[in-house]
């Protein structure tokens, strides 16, 4: 410590010093009317209507204020994590001893230089044909060797390994560890991709990083990384950030997965569950086939035995016997039919005969008269002579009588009818 007399250092009160610093800041043109790029954090908007937050990047942060009058004109929904460009003046809040940016405009970085750089590089690589669909290679259904390029300590690796263990533990996994953010990340990622292809020859490579701000993911927009992805021998599935993040590495990859876990799933479209059911199907088939082999032989055997039986002389004999039976049967039934017919005919004849019996009419009161002299039946009056003896036959007996006189006055019709009898 120096003696007090020799001490020429300036002395300030805190207020004096702070005020002086504030004036210094405000008098520096390079610190007024500036744009600052960073990610919003600790965003708050108390009832006063003023807005307080910080913007930060990987290694520093800056306090920001938006007065109520300006805050009401904000065009964007400012939330933590949003990468923005803030415009304003740098000054110092004396009571808090804090330098801060008094913001009058806030816009997403998409409208800013970083996004412009992203677009420029995208257009350049696109014009070289790095993103065309024809370049995309198919992802194998079953990869035996799966390469992973990511941070050895990140959540992305944990998620990938969990998914692979669950879906396809038969795989051999080769990790090429690399930082995934920071200035050294791009060259390290490109080198990891290169040596993985060179020394491990995987069937597929997963390039992954967990979610983060646009800046966190920036390494995956680096030209070296994008070119290394496009140059990879093995097909690459990228799983960088979240669903909504599209990096240039995603465009160059053969397949883009929304997350690291999804990348692991896309790398294993056939899972052990599928293998298990395939195996069960094979097992079923084997068992059925063994049974059916025996079954087919049994059937063939049965069929041959059947043919043998058909060809045997015993069978022939049986056939003859059956024919004999047939004939016999036909004979019998023919005879039976003939007999039936004959008896029916007989009965018919009998009836007809009965109707023709001349004596039947006697039961109805008629008589048959026979001449005694000539012995013939009298049917006409001219055959009858008075005084002649005739025999009269009734249904149940005969008597003899003599003709007293005759008249031939019967009308023709009646005599005709008698003729019919």
């Amino acid at each position: 410590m120096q003696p007090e007399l020799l001490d020429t250092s300036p002395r300030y009160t805190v207020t004096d010093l702070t005020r002086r610093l504030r004036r210094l800041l405000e008098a520096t043109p390079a610190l007024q009317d500036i744009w600052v790029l960073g990610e919003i954090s600790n965003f708050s908007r108390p009832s006063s209507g003023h807005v307080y937050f910080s913007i930060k990047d990987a290694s520093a942060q800056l306090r920001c204020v938006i007065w109520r009058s300006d805050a009401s004109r904000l065009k964007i929904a400012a939330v933590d994590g949003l990468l923005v460009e803030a415009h304003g003046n740098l000054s110092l809040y004396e009571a808090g001893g804090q330098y801060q940016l008094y913001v009058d405009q806030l816009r997403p970085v998409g409208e800013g230089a970083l996004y412009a750089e992203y677009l420029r590089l995208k257009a350049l690589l696109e014009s070289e044909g790095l993103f065309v669909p024809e370049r995309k290679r198919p992802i194998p259904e079953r990869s035996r060797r799966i390469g992973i390029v990511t941070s050895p300590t990140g959540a992305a690796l944990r998620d990938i390994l969990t998914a692979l263990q669950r879906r396809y533990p038969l795989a051999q996994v080769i990790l090429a560890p690399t930082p995934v953010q920071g200035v050294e990340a791009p060259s390290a990622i490109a080198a990891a991709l290169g040596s993985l292809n060179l020394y491990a020859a995987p069937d597929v490579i997963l390039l992954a990083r967990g979610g983060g701000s646009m800046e966190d993911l920036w390494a995956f927009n680096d030209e070296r990384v994008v070119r290394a992805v496009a140059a990879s021998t093995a097909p690459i599935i990228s799983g960088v950030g979240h669903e909504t993040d599209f990096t240039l590495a995603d465009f160059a990859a053969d397949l883009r997965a929304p997350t690291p876990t999804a990348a692991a799933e896309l790398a294993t479209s056939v899972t052990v569950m599928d293998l298990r059911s395939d195996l069960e199907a094979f097992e079923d088939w084997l068992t059925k086939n063994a049974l059916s082999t025996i079954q087919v032989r049994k059937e063939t055997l049965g069929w041959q035995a059947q043919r043998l039986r058909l060809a045997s002389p015993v069978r022939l004999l049986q056939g003859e016997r059956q024919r004999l039976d047939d004939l016999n049967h036909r004979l019998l039934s023919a005879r039976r039919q003939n007999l039936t017919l004959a008896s029916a005919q007989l009965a018919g004849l009998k009836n007809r005969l009965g109707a023709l019996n001349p004596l039947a009419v006697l039961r109805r009161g008629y008589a048959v008269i026979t001449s005694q002299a000539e012995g013939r039946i009298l049917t006409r009056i001219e055959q009858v002579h008075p005084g002649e003896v005739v025999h009269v036959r009734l249904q149940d007996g005969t008597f003899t009588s003599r003709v007293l006189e005759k008249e031939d006055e019967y009308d023709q019709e009646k005599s005709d009818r008698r003729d019919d009898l």
Partner: protein
Amino acid sequence: MTKKKAIEEMTYEEAFVELEAIVASLEAGDQTLDESTGLYARGQALVLRCAELLEKTELKVSQLTGEVLKDFEAEA
């Protein structure tokens, strides 16, 4: 099937490839009864091997450092 590696030393892929071949050959069905019985028995053994591998397998993770592959131990 010229190479007859012991089934219990086969990887899943080796066992499965031979299993497919056996099934195809049984499907063609041009063996004697004896031969097909033998093939069937080997097929069953391969199925068992595959099933065992599916049950037991743990994901094998190694780490590429420079040109060298080492076992990878995840940090908890």
